[in-house]
C-alpha cells in the first residue's frame, strides 16, 4: 500500500526518507515540487497527485509535508488518515512535530516508522503499544542512557498487541488513581454583516486523562444525552451500550486520549456568546481606510469570556495600520497581512474597542471585499450546549479513584463577515 514516505520542509528539502518496499528514487518528489510551485500557498497543494508511475499523497502538518508514494489503488483517506496518525505519534513522543525535533530524534523516528507499517500496511498505530516497544525520549532517560548505555528500546517485548484490547497495556500501576475528563465545546459559526447568524453549530470533544491501576471498566453517563446528534468514539467505547442505554462504557487506554467527539445539531439554537460591531471601510481616494471594531457579551450564561482574540486577514493593498485599542494590544504582520488583536478578558462594563486608520498602497484600487473577522474566545466552566456529565462509575477494580470533569467552551471556526 504505502510504498515510501518522504518528509519535506517548507523550503522544499527532503530531510527524511523511508521505504517499506523497494527503494524509490527521491526524484519522484519533483512532481510534488512542481505542484507546490503552482499552488503558491502550501495549503492549496492538491493532496493527491498523479505521476506516470506513482501516486503521491501528501499532508501538510506543522510546516512539514508528509509525502507518501503509492503504486496501486488504495483509499486515499486511508493514507491521509495514517499520515496524520504518524504526525500525531511524533507529537505525542516529542511534544511537537517539527523539522528540528525530527532531525534530532531521527533514530527513534525511524524505529517508529518501522513499527507502524509493515510492507506498507499499518501494523501498530496505537500509541500505547508503540510506547511499550519504543520508549519516548525524556531528559532523564537520555541522561541515564548515556551513563549506563541502556537503550530506548523496550527490553520486554510488547504484549498489548496480542491482547483483545490493544489500546491498554497490562500491569499498569499508580499510587494516585485518577480519572479526569475535559468536555470541550467549540462553536462554529458564520455571522453576517448585520450580526445575524448565517450558520452555527457546536462541535464537542471529551478528552480524558485516565491513570488507573489494573483493568478498570468505566461507565460515563450524561444528564442529557439526547442533545448529542452525532458522535464518534475511541475504539474502546462499546457501541452496543451506547445504542441501547446512551452511556459510554469502556476500558480506557492508559494516559491521555480522546474519548469521543460529538456534534450538537444546528436545529437547537446555538447561543452565540459575543456580538461584534464593526465598521471597516476603504476610501476611494486618499489610499486609506478606517477600521472600528467593538465586541460585547451576548449569551454568556453568566460566565466571563476570556482569551478573546480577533484575527483579520487584510487585503493585500493594506500597507500599515494606525490603530488604538482600548484594551489589549494588536499586531499587524506586514508580510502575511494579518492583523491580530489580543483582547484578553471581556469586561462587560467597558467594552473593548479597536479603531484607527489603515493606510493603503498608493495607486492600488480599493478592495472590493471587506476582510472577515475570525474570533477566538474561551469560556471556562461552561459547556455552551448545556451537556452535563452525570456520573462516572468504575467496575473491575476495588480502589476508589479521584474523578473530575471540566467544561470549556471555545470558538471554533467563528467568522464574522463584514
Amino acid at each position, binding site marked *: 500500500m504505502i510504498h515510501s514516505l518522504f518528509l519535506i520542509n517548507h523550503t522544499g528539502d527532503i530531510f527524511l526518507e523511508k521505504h517499506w518496499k523497494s527503494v524509490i528514487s527521491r526524484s519522484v518528489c519533483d512532481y510534488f515540487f512542481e505542484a507546490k510551485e503552482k499552488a503558491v500557498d502550501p495549503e492549496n497543494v492538491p493532496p493527491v497527485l498523479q505521476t506516470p508511475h506513482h501516486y503521491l499523497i501528501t499532508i501538510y502538518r506543522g510546516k512539514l509535508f508528509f509525502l507518501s508514494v503509492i503504486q496501486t*489503488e488504495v483509499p486515499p483517506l486511508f493514507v491521509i*488518515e495514517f499520515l496524520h496518525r504518524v504526525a500525531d505519534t511524533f507529537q505525542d513522543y516529542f511534544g511537537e512535530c517539527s523539522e528540528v525535533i525530527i532531525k534530532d530524534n531521527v533514530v527513534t523516528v525511524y524505529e517508529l516508522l518501522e513499527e507502524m507499517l509493515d510492507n506498507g500496511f499499518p501494523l501498530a498505530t496505537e500509541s500505547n503499544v508503540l510506547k511499550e516497544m519504543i520508549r519516548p525520549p525524556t531528559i532523564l532517560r537520555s541522561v541515564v542512557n548515556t551513563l549506563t548505555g541502556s537503550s530506548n528500546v523496550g527490553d520486554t517485548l510488547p504484549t498489548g498487541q496480542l491482547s483483545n484490547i490493544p489500546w491498554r497495556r497490562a500491569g499498569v500501576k499508580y499510587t494516585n488513581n485518577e480519572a479526569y475528563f475535559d468536555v470541550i465545546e467549540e462553536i462554529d459559526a458564520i455571522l453576517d454583516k448585520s450580526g445575524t447568524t448565517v450558520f452555527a453549530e457546536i462541535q464537542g470533544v471529551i478528552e480524558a486523562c485516565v491513570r488507573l491501576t489494573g483493568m478498570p471498566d468505566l461507565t460515563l453517563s450524561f444528564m442529557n444525552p439526547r442533545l448529542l446528534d*452525532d458522535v464518534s468514539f475511541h475504539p474502546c467505547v462499546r457501541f452496543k451500550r451506547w445504542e441501547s442505554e446512551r452511556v459510554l462504557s469502556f476500558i480506557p487506554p492508559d494516559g491521555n486520549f480522546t474519548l469521543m467527539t460529538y456534534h450538537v445539531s444546528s436545529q437547537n439554537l446555538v447561543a452565540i456568546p459575543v456580538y461584534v460591531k464593526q465598521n471597516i471601510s476603504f476610501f476611494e481616494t486618499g489610499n486609506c481606510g478606517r477600521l472600528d471594531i467593538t465586541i460585547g457579551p451576548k449569551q454568556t450564561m453568566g460566565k466571563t469570556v476570556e482569551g478573546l482574540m480577533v484575527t483579520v486577514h487584510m487585503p493585500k493593498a493594506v500597507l500599515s495600520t494606525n490603530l488604538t485599542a482600548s484594551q489589549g494590544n494588536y499586531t499587524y504582520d506586514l508580510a502575511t497581512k494579518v492583523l491580530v488583536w489580543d483582547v484578553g478578558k471581556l469586561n462587560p462594563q467597558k467594552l473593548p474597542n479597536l479603531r484607527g486608520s489603515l493606510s493603503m498602497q498608493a495607486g492600488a484600487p480599493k478592495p472590493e471585499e471587506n476582510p472577515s473577522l475570525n474570533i477566538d474566545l474561551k469560556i471556562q466552566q461552561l459547556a455552551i450546549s448545556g451537556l452535563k456529565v452525570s456520573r462516572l462509575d468504575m467496575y473491575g477494580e476495588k480502589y476508589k479513584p479521584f474523578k473530575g470533569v471540566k467544561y470549556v467552551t471555545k470558538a471554533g471556526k467563528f*467568522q464574522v463577515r463584514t
Partner: protein
Amino acid sequence: MLDSNKDSLKLEAMKRIVAMIARGKNASDLFPAVVKNVACKNIEVKKLVYVYLVRYAEEQQDLALLSISTFQRGLKDPNQLIRASALRVLSSIRVTIIVPIMMLAIKEAASDMSPYVRKTAAHAIPKLYSLDPEQKDQLIEVIEKLLADKTTLVAGSVVMAFEEVCPERIDLIHKNYRKLCNLLIDVEEWGQVVIINMLTRYARTQFLNPNINESLLEEGGGGEKTFYGSDEEEDEDEEEKEKKAEAAVMAKRKPYVMDPDHRLLLRNTKPLLQSRNAAVVMAVAQLYFHLAPKAEVGVIAKALVRLLRSHSEVQYVVLQNVATMTIKRRGMFEPYLKSFYIRSTDPTQIKVLKLEVLTNLANETNISTILREFQTYIKSMDKDFVAATIQAIGRCATNIGEVRDTCLNGLVQLLSNRDELVVAESVVVIKKLLQMQPEKHSDIIKHMAKLTDNIQVPMARASILWLIGEYCEHVPKIAPDVLRKMAKSFTNEEDIVKLQIINLAAKLYLTNSKQTKLLTQYVLNLAKYDQNYDIRDRARFIRQLIVPTEKSGALSKYAKKLFLALKPAPVLESPFKDRDHFQLGSLSHLLNAKAGGYQELPDWPEAAPDPLRAQRGGEGVCACSGNSNIQRHRGPLGSPGAPKDGGEQGLLLPQSKSDSASGSESASGSEESGSGSESEESEEGSESEEEEEEEEEEKDKKKKKKEIKKPVQEIEPAPSPQVTPVNTFLSNSLVTDLEGLSLSDSVLSPAAIAPSSALKNYELLHRITGEGLSVEYCFSRQPFSPDGNMVAVQMQFTNNATSDTKNLHMEDVKLQSGMRVKEFPEIELLPAGETATAVMGIDFCDSTQAANFQLCTHTRKFFVSIQPPVGELMRPVFLTENEFKKEQGA
C-alpha cells in the same frame, strides 16, 4: 566501531548509519560490517541492523544470505514475538533465492498457535507475492487457510493479502462471509477499511440490487425520499414502513426480499460510521452508497458531514465523494446545506469543492438562499474562487429555470467589475446562458459588444465575438462595427480570438455581405499569412466555403446553413457526473481515472447466484478440515489462476475508459463551444480522415485473408459524435446488401463452419475442471445469420471422460445490460472420446464485457464466461467486388 565488543559503541555506530539512511545517503559499502551484528544480543542494535538489512539486502544479495540462518533460528523460538519478528524481517528481505525458505516459513507460521504470528504470516504473503508472482497458487492456499481464522487480529491482515494477491477469487470469501461480518467491529481500524471495501465488492456480486424496483418507479423523479433520523428505533420504524410500502409496490412486480446476509452486512457496518478514523467512516459510507436500499443511505450523510471538521486533506477527499453522491442522491445532503458554506479561511481547493456541492444541492426551494451565499462569495479576494462561483451561478441558472433571469442580471452587473478575471468569467458564463434564449436579451449582447474595447482576456473576447456572430441578426447595426474594430487589431490578438474574428467575418458576410464584404476579405487575407497554421487553414477553408467562385463545390450553397444553423445550448454539467462508476472513496474515483490495481465494482447480478449462497457458512466452519471442502467448491468456478469466474479482472476496463473519455469530452466540449461551429466542422473533417485511415488498414487485412469483411464499429470509443453518422450510413447500406445475398439457415448447423486454422482457440472449460468435458471456443468470424448484430462463437466440445455426456446445453445466462445471447442448440449425446461443435451468437454491444453462463450436462453445471478479445468484435458483411472497390476508393 561495529567491530567493537561494547554494545554501546555498536549502538552508536548503528544510529549513525541509520541516520545516514534516513537522509537518503548511500551506506551500502558498510554491508559486511553490519551483517555480522545480526546475531547481536542487544535488542536495539538488532533492530537497527534489521532496518539496515531490509534496506540494502536487495543490492547485496549474496552477503544478505549470511543473515538468513539467524532468522531461521528465530522462527523456531518459543517466544511468539520473536518468531513473528523473525518472519517479518525474513519476508522483508527481497532476495529471490530465499523464496522457497520464505514460502516454507509462511506456511509454518500460518498454522502457528499464536494469532500474532499468523497475522505476521498474512503480512508476509503480499511481500512474497511481489517478489515472485509464480508462488501465487501456493499463497492462495495459505490465504484460504488464514481466511478461516477466527481471531480479529488476523482478519484485517489476511483480507489485505487477499486483495493484493487474488482479489478475483471471490469464491474464497463465501465460507467466511458471515464470520467477517461479525468480527468486523472488533478488527483494528485499518483492517476494517480493507475488509469493508472487499465486502462491498463481494456483495455486489452476490446479492440483488435492493433498489431494483424503486429505480424503475422513481426514474426521473427528482425528490427522492430519504430519511435522516437521529434515533435508531425510529430508524428501524421507518425501515419497516419503507418495507411495507415497498412490499405493496412489489406485489405487482417480482418481489424483492433482502438476503439476510446482505442485511447482516449493512447492520454490522453501521456502528462503524461512529469510528474516529475517517477512512473507516468513508469506507462504510461508500458501502451504504453502493449497497443499501435508497431509504437507508441517508444515515451516512451525517457522518460524512462530521468529517468536514477534520484536516483539510480529509475534507478534500470527503468533499470529492460528497460531490459525486449529491448528483445521485441530492436529498441526502440537503439538510446539511449550511455545513457546506464557505469560510474565507478555507484553502481554495476546498472552497471550489464546497461550491460544487452547493451547486449540486441547489433546487427550487433553496436556490434563493444559495444565491444569497454566492453573492457574498463573489466579493471574495480569492479570484480563482470568484471565477468558480460565477461558473456555479451559471450552472444554477441553467438547471433551475425560475432564477435564470435573476442570475443573468446579476452576472451582467458583474460586467462592470473592476477585476478583469471576474468580467471575463462572467462573459463566458453569460454567453452560455444567452444561448438558451437569445431573443430576449439583445440588449445584453449590445452591452457586451461595448466591452470588447476593455476586456483583454482572450477567452472572454472570443466569447463575445462568437455571441455577436451567432446573433448578428439581433444586433445588425453593431456587428459590422465590431468586426471593423477587430480587423484593425487582428494581428495583435491571441489565436483563439483570431479564429473567432474569422468566424464572425464569415457569418457577417453571409448575412450582410453588402457592408462587410471588404472587411471579410481583409480579415481573410490577414489570416492567410498568419503564423499559426490553424488560422491559415481556417481562413482557406472559409474562403472556399463562402466566397462563390466557379471552382467552389456544392458546399458553398449550404454555407449559410452550415454557419447559421441553430446550435443546441450547452449543457452545464457537474464534472462529478458519472464519477460514481468508480467505487467511491477509492483513489481511482478521486483522480477520475483507473489507478493500477483498481478492482472494478461489479454490477448487480440479475439473479442471485443461489448455489454459492449455500456455502456461506456460519461462524462455525472449521478451518483445518477445510481443505477437501475447498477443493470441492472450487470445482465449478474454474481452475485457480485462470481469470474466468466472476470475470473480475479485465472485465470493465474499456467501459470505464469510454465513460471517462466521454465525460471529459463533454466537459471540454462545453468549454470549447466558445470557438463556435467552425471548430466542430473542422473536427469533423479530421475525424473522417482518421476514419478513412482505419478503414484502409482494415482493407489491407481483408485483402490478405481474401475474406470480405467490414468492421462496423471500432472498439475504441468514438471520439466525436460526428463520426457516427458516417458509420451508420455505411453499415446500413451494408446490411441491405447482406440481406440481398440471402444466407441459408444452414449456418447454424455445426458442420457449415469449418474451424479455420488461423483462428485462435480459447479455453472455456478445462477437462479437469469439467470432469472430463473440455470446451474450447473461437470467434469464427462468420456471419451469425439469426441476428446480424451478434458475434458468432464456435464451440468445440470434447468428451475426454469414459462415460457419455448427455443433454449439453446452456442455462442461467448473466449479461451486462444490453447484451444478448442466442444459445446453441442442445447437444443430446456426446459419446466418450468424441468431439462435437456448436455455434452460439452473442451480442456484446461493442463492449468487451464477459458473457457468463452455466454449461449444463445431464449431471453437472459449470460456470463459464466468454470474454471477447478486442479484435474479435466485428461483424462480417458480404460485399460484391464492385462494392468493395467502391468502399476502398471512398
